[in-house]
């Protein structure tokens, strides 16, 4: 049977068909839907959200050692977090097959950078597969699980946004049943002391030789021969772009396995064509292997080494031609994402925005990063998950020592706090920092599409779970009880009082702004804990003094046309604008 699947759905399907028993992941675009779909197979495959990517990979490693086929999934930057276990796992190898899915985001559709994670495969020396479409996404996960066991290596399945989020037809097959491989203690294999590590390192070289031989013989690295004028080497989604551009008259070497590289096959192919092109997105990964082997080719001197490719770019790069197209003199303006109408983060950032001249606000990654956009502009740094509190700590230390009046506030989401924020807060408490930490607890992992996390009370498989208690965590780390406040960020006076109190302290303090994301599917507990009755705000046009203060909240439901107006469709009655209006012109009414 054939079904249309996204690349991510296909990865989940392939893992299921391949006899997977364990999957763990931390969400991150474009990888998130893999585990969300994996959970549909929960009768056969245990699935979970881990607090971060390192934990996810380590859990998958443990499952593999215990004899199960396992998988960990993450976005490209997640592999940075998981890199520590990865590099040593490459030495120990596996028991049950283990696949690490890295979903890269060329062009940064929804990421802070666009690193090319193919480099991880060669740096860690793990076998790498690169699917070009949904069918291959499914096939390569299954193959990956087999190769992992065959060569005793973790396998990196490297995919990209376009593959993850494109749909194509996929042939479905039955699940192969894989029992747990009986566990035995294997201390010399799995205890990476320097003594054992040295032995494992030598064995790794032997494994690399075997994998290289396989790479040269496998038919996922395959030639499609047509003419001898032009040859194209490519992998992943770039291959389908190359096919569109170079057409049926060129010859191709399509690489499905790109570490170890099939250099013998490449040399043979190069001999068969007069002109050789390498078409690849981001880094010259394939190209540098060719250059090192002295094989002349045309690649990055023509084609950009950054950004997402598409057939237009490939065509322009190599042939200098563009398709005929229609154009008009008018230009569309960009449509930046914004905090939703009713977002609880708005109250927090409105209060911070009023004080921001006296503050350095270190931020983190999540919906709340949108607090950096005008008109709020109340976040001044953001680079990686968990970094807000630790960067704030470093900044506060040097500012304090230099006698500066600037105070540092660090804003972090609930999921991000659990991800790596806790360690950073430990740094603040332990080393007597004084930056103010604000945990924006909207009861869900919102940015990536509402995944459960250790604080929400549910697991990925929908079971009730213990809720990690953020105030208790802070206390255990060493933040004093009297310096921890939980507030409703939509009550601006409460929010402001908490910030002022924290600013008056010299000891580290934590404010937890606790209110559920307006787009969240509320749980029974949410309905008990929060007053979530549907409301809306309306402007009394008579009373409106046209001062536009309400527009300073950056709410997308508010427009100005003679007077302020609130869209009844999008307003949720959060009341932030009502509190901001000095003239009482905005009223809150029940729906």
């Amino acid at each position, binding site marked *: 049977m054939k079904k249309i699947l996204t690349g991510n759905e296909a990865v989940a399907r392939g893992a299921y068909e391949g006899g997977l028993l364990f999957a763990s992941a931390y969400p991150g675009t474009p990888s998130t839907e893999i585990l969300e779909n994996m959970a549909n197979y929960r009768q056969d495959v245990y699935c979970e959200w881990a607090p971060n990517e390192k934990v996810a990979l380590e859990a998958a490693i443990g499952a593999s050692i215990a004899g199960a086929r396992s998988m960990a999934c993450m976005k490209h930057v997640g592999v940075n977090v998981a890199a520590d276990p990865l590099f040593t796992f490459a030495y120990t190898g596996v028991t049950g097959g283990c696949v690490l899915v890295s979903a890269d985001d060329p062009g940064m559709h929804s990421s802070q950078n666009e690193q090319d994670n193919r480099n991880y495969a060669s740096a860690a020396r793990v076998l790498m597969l690169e699917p070009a479409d949904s069918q291959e996404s499914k096939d390569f996960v299954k193959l990956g699980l087999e190769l992992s066991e065959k060569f005793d290596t973790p396998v990196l399945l490297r995919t990209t946004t376009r593959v993850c989020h494109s749909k194509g037809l996929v042939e479905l097959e039955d699940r192969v049943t894989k029992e747990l491989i009986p566990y035995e203690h294997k201390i010399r294999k799995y205890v990476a002391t320097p003594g054992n590590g040295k032995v494992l390192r030598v064995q790794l070289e032997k494994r690399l030789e075997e994998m290289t031989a396989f790479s040269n013989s496998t038919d996922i690295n395959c030639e499609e021969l047509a003419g001898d004028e032009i040859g194209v080497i490519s992998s992943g989604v770039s291959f389908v772009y190359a096919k569109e551009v170079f057409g049926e008259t060129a010859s191709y070497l399509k690489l499905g396995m790109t570490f170890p590289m099939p250099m013998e096959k490449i040399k043979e192919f190069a001999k068969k064509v007069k002109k050789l092109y390498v078409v690849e997105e981001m880094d010259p990964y394939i190209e540098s292997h060719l250059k090192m082997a002295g094989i002349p080719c045309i690649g990055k001197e023509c084609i950009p080494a950054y950004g997402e490719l598409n057939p237009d770019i490939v065509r322009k790069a190599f042939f200098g031609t563009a398709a005929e197209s*229609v*154009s008009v003199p008018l230009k569309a303006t960009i449509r930046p994402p914004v905090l939703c109408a009713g977002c609880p983060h708005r109250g927090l950032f409105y209060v911070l925005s009023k004080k921001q001249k006296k503050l350095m606000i270190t931020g983190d990654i999540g919906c709340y990063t949108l607090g950096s956009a*005008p008109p709020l502009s109340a976040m001044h740094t953001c680079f990686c998950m968990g970094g807000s509190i630790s960067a704030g700590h470093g900044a506060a230390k040097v500012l304090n020592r230099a006698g500066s009046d600037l105070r540092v506030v660090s804003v972090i989401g609930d999921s991000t706090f659990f991800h790596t924020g806790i360690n950073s807060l430990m740094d603040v408490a332990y080393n007597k920092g004084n930056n103010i930490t604000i945990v924006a607890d909207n009861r869900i992992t919102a940015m990536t599409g509402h995944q459960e996390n250790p604080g929400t009370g549910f697991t990925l498989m929908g079971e009730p779970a213990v809720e990690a208690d953020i105030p208790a965590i802070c206390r255990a780390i060493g933040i004093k009880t009297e310096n921890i406040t939980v507030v409703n960020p939509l009550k601006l006076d409460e929010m402001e009082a908490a910030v002022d109190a924290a600013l008056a302290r010299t000891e580290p303090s934590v404010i937890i702004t606790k209110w559920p994301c307006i787009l969240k599917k509320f749980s029974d507990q949410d309905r008990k804990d929060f007053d979530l009755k549907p409301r809306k705000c309306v402007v009394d046009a008579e009373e409106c003094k046209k001062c536009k203060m309400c527009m300073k909240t950056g709410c997308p439901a508010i427009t100005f046309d003679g007077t302020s107006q609130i869209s009844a469709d999008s307003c949720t009655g959060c009341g932030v604008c009502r509190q901001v209006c000095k003239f009482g012109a905005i009223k809150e009414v029940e729906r």
Partner: protein
Amino acid sequence: MSDVKNILLVGVGGQGTILASKILSEGLIEAGYDVKMSEIHGMSQRGGDVSTQIRYGEKVYSPIVGEGAADLIVAFEKMEALRWISHLKKDGKMLINDFEIPTVPIQLGVEKYPEGILDSLKAVADTVVIEAGEIAKQVGNTRTMNIVLLGALAKAMNLGNLDWKSLIQRNVKKGFEDINLKAFEAGFACL
């Protein structure tokens, strides 16, 4: 690969482009085409723009519709039509929903919503303006705007022979099947 047809559905998060393209691609598959479809919806839930690219034919490789390659662009919002016009084929068709969603910088008065979009597009391309919001209202539910546009798309691409009734019944929210069918028919008839 000239038998491959290219369609773009563009709009703003929350407008229902993704459901419309899901129904369309399912229909195309049932009709026996090879289909590739690509969606970029990074931050769409937070008011960003959304685009879906659908390509169908005997054999389709790339999921991406290039510049000057779209046979049809269906813009659920006017400024999004402008954003994607360079992707239209010289003799392609543009269906535009006469509907404006300002960006936040526009709401704040920092930028301006471009004026005269419809006229300038009409001057360079075969452009049909559809009052999908109005039609959906007449049908009885403004939220069926996306299905009205899907109906118009079906007419424009000569896809009336797909099993739309069953496709819509299977894909829309329970209890809203009939009203969506009506919306589809109204969209189909408006072209």
